[in-house]
């Protein structure tokens, strides 16, 4: 078999494909590789050096099919063909530059490990492996994407994860038949339960410690090569409000912060619609003094409360999006334009009332309290339908909308796990990690809703209450 011509024909019209012949100690070898993937210094220093040392026995793994050879080359390895007997081997090439491990930008934490995932799957797996050096941490890699053949790894802890959930995730992953898998978000959308839902049914994180924490609860992590965000499934609604900091800090602090987050989520969802309902329909529910001052503040506003609030909330979302897209240096400009110019001058021009500016500001701040970005944005978007409802039906409409959201949340599932668990279905033992982050030694068991094989998280027998 003529390896070199077979492989070269596969890589026709690829200028970065190289096949170069080297003569070493009377033998000639042909090296086939992609110079976009392999560092030439590495070839010079390591591979040729090794060939020079052992001329008779080639110290590399043999290869038998052309397909195999092609895929190794595509993975950044080298194909080495000995010209005399046409034996093919492959040598592991060194990858080119990749981003080094940096501090997580999107999920900052005060305490705990700060490293974050990078784009390389191998590095990402190693970040987990290094933290959990035990063979029971399983990493199964498969290639997904009809054309891109992206490596997708599924990580779980054998002996903790429930086999039913594992099978479900594995089955769903095996159905992925897309032409490209460039992002974990694409996988998430393919394998999620309900795409009519605004709520995220998979969590993503950039921090290895979060992944490990989730796996030790009995969850499964999905890593996509070339992507620094790792998916965690299955998730529940309560996970939107959990942050690793809760567990690193003392339980009282963790609890207090978590309650603030839940309150923030409630405010972000309902405050503008509550404002509309109270102003337009039920001024009797506002204390008299406040009602008088709101009435005075709104005296020059020509729009109904609904349009006024819609205008300001839409502006807020625009500012947020603009701030996200612009370079960081410009971010401050957006803040000044948004905060001072729009906020203050809209009031002075009599387009919005001063109270609404406060409402919008509080809404904005509280919507950023939710640690999960995809959960926060779901809540932020849902407030617009709620505003329409309360603008047309008052408090009745607001409650109608909230009931619809609740009904949806209760019926939603993530990989067979009820999304609103442990509130409903009711699992009291899991309430220790819901609103309240119970003291460490009270959280003896892993979450019951995930049905882990190994229930016990710790053994508190040796620990004394007071030392």
């Amino acid at each position, binding site marked *: 078999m003529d390896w070199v011509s077979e492989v070269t024909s596969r890589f026709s019209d690829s200028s970065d494909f190289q096949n170069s012949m080297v003569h070493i100690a009377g033998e000639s070898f042909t090296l086939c590789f992609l110079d976009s993937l392999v560092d030439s210094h590495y070839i010079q220093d390591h591979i040729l050096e090794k060939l020079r040392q052992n001329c008779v026995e080639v110290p590399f793994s043999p290869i038998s099919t052309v397909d195999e050879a092609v895929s190794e080359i595509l993975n950044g390895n080298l194909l080495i063909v000995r010209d005399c007997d046409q034996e093919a081997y492959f040598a592991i090439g060194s990858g080119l530059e990749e981003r080094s491990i940096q501090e997580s930008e999107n999920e900052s934490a005060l305490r705990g490990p700060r490293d974050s995932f990078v784009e390389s799957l191998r590095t990402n797996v190693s970040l987990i492996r290094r933290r959990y050096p035990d063979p029971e941490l399983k990493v199964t890699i498969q290639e997904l994407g009809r054309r891109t053949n992206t490596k997708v790894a599924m990580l779980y802890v054998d002996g903790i994860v429930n086999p039913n959930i594992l099978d479900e995730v594995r089955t769903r992953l095996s159905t992925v038949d897309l032409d490209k898998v460039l992002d974990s978000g694409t996988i998430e959308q393919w394998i999620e339960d309900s795409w009519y839902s605004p709520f995220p049914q998979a969590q993503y994180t950039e921090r290895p410690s979060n992944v490990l924490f989730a796996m030790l609860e009995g969850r499964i992590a999905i890593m996509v090569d070339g992507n620094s965000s790792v998916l965690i499934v299955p998730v529940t609604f309560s996970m939107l409000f959990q942050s690793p900091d809760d567990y690193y800090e003392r339980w009282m602090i963790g609890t207090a912060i978590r309650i603030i987050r839940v309150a923030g989520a409630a405010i972000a969802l309902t405050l503008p619609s509550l404002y509309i309902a109270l102003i337009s329909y039920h001024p009797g529910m506002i204390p008299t003094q406040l*009602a008088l001052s709101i009435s005075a503040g709104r005296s020059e506003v020509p729009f109904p409360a609904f349009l006024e609030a819609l205008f300001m909330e839409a502006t807020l979302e625009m500012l947020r999006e603009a701030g996200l897209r612009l370079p960081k240096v410009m971010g401050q400009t957006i803040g000044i334009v948004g905060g001072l110019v729009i906020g203050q001058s809209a009031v002075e021009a009599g387009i919005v009332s001063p109270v609404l500016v406060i409402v919008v500001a509080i809404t904005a701040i509280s919507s950023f309290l939710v640690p999960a970005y995809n959960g926060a944005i779901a809540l932020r978007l849902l407030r617009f339908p709620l505003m329409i409802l309360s603008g047309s039906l008052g408090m009745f409409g607001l409650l109608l909308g909230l009931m619809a959201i609740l009904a949806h949340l209760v019926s939603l599932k993530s990989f067979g796990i009820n999304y609103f668990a442990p509130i409903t279905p009711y699992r009291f033992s899991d309430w220790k990690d819901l609103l309240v982050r119970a003291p460490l030694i009270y959280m003896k068991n892993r979450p019951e809703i995930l049905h882990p094989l190994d229930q016990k998280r710790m053994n508190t027998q040796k620990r004394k209450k007071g030392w």
Partner: protein
Amino acid sequence: MKRRALLLLSAVLPLLLSGCWDRVEIQERLFVMAIAIDKNLPEKGKRSYYEYSAQFTEARALSSRISSTNISPIWNATSTGPSIFECIRLMATRVARQPYYEHLQIIIIGEEMAKDGISHALDLFFRDHESRRNIKLVIAKGMGKSALAVKPRLMPVSGQYISKLTEEGESKTARLPNTVSIGQFSTNFHSGSNSVLPRITIEPHEVKMAGGAIMKGDKLIGWLSDQEVKSLRWINGTFSAGDEVILQNPEGGIPGFTTMEVKAVRSQIHTEIRNGKPVFTVRIRGEGNLAEDGLKNNPTIEKLRKKEIQMNKIVQRKAESLIQRMQKTYQTDIFGFGEELRRHQYAYWKTHEKNWDQNFKDAEVHVSVEVFIRRIGQFK
């Protein structure tokens, strides 16, 4: 797919049906802070029995957002008509905005109106969904309307001033009765018992809220003085804060008064039927602090006991005289004795329910008082 589209339609269409029919922006509403209802003496052939005054507030003027001198923060509009509802709707012919009653604080009834009975005039406010049960109800000596016209020194809205007065007065003195809301009045009226409502006397820049209006059913039959209202609250056990004076023998020109700050009073009414007549034993226990006694009077235990005994006698005498006055002059049970009979002597109550106030006249009432002075403060 079709089913889903139908579901979506049925969810969206009701929103169009509603058309925001209840929507009135807050700045378009005119807050009514207080109303006064007076009796109107109709001219011949005219059918207007009520003179209805409403106090509207303009929030912009209150927060001094507009400085135009011809817009005042409050407007007392008056209309006359045969029913309150008609009066309210007549207002709409003069007021260009929608009056809003959910922030109504107080209803002031004129003296003449109260003498005729107020249940009819208040009926709308019991029924209407825009009014609350805790709207305060007071009786004005003279015209209720003139109470709205009072220009208080420190507050811009007289209705708010009068309504605050009931709250503040309640926590500092017992000179006004504690049943002040229309809900409480309605409860009393419908259970057949009588009430005492706060009385206000009107001056150009202030009102005085003290004393009580004796309401037999819904009719005003007489007034209670400040001191009598205090006695009433000793008997009811609702004397929660206020002053009571212990009279000492005045020596020379120096007034020898000792004042006690009453902190809490409890009373128990024991009922029994003796010879076919109800006998009530009112046991009053009160406690409080020594407020003023004169610097030279170093308190000792004996002195304090003496003062307590003096106090007991004073309260007992005042309570007894109030009860006698109610029995003799008005034949009206304002103390809730009837309710006690209904609870404990049901057989008797059943037969005498109809003319209880007549029987009350002959009832035997014993009052015993026990007062404790708990704190004497610093005295050296």
